[in-house]
């Protein structure tokens, strides 16, 4: 039973990440790509890691995975912010009409 539930949740997460990949190739403006890469992918990782935690139950393994989830949750938007800020400051000020 627990395997089935975790499998469904992991599949939902994989489909989120796949939507992010489609978005990377779909847009041809840098800022839209950065938006897609930061938001959709973070949601996908949270869902996949939740599925892994449900599959393993309450154990030492789950605690470590939870720490990694916390770190990823903080770091992933921070990196995207830093890259976009670097692009904006060094003069990539193109906007599409």
């Amino acid at each position, binding site marked *: 039973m627990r395997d089935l539930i975790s499998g469904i949740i992991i599949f939902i997460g994989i489909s989120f990440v796949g939507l992010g990949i489609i978005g990377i190739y779909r847009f*041809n*403006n840098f800022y839209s790509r950065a938006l897609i890469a930061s938001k959709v992918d973070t949601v996908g990782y949270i869902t996949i890691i939740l599925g892994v935690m449900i599959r393993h139950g309450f154990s030492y393994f789950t605690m470590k995975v939870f720490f990694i989830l916390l770190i990823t949750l903080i770091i992933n938007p921070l990196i995207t912010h830093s890259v976009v800020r670097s692009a904006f400051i060094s*003069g990539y*000020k*193109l906007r*599409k009409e």
Partner: protein
Amino acid sequence: MLELTLLLLIVLSIAALQTRSLRNAVIYLGVFSLAISFVYLLYHAPDVAIAEAVIGSTIATILYLVALQKYKIFTIYYRLQDSEVEDTHYFSRYKLQLVKSLEKFCTKQELEAQIIYSLEELDDILTKHQYALIIEEHEAFISIYAHHENYMLDKLEFFLDNEPAFIRPYRIVKMEEIEGEVME
């Protein structure tokens, strides 16, 4: 799934060797070290993988960047008009020709070319930023602004004369320093 990762390794190493810009090569090497540490993991060697991740993707990147600091950077501002469709994909043929020949010149002189597309006014770029060349496009010709003490200018003129003919003619304008700015 091992074969796919090994294929990725080959493509990335060839790209890191063949690219012209050195900063792109640093990024390709970062991806390469991440992928090769995943291959170590698949071969049941997690300790080697940790060492590769620490050394390859962090310390080597920082060392390469510190070494790149010794490399001179040639900053080129490209001023765009407001009405143009502004994305890199839509640049027309004659623009790309000039930019490509400038990049070739920088590679020959052992400089790192940094091209910035900007919408600011010409005076703003002159006063606020450090520049080597400013390129502006008019109806019939392209004008290249440069400071009159720029010691690369003679070599650049000589190089552009020997290139095959451009679709739009270019004109080099030498800027004089305004005295009021020096006082500030």
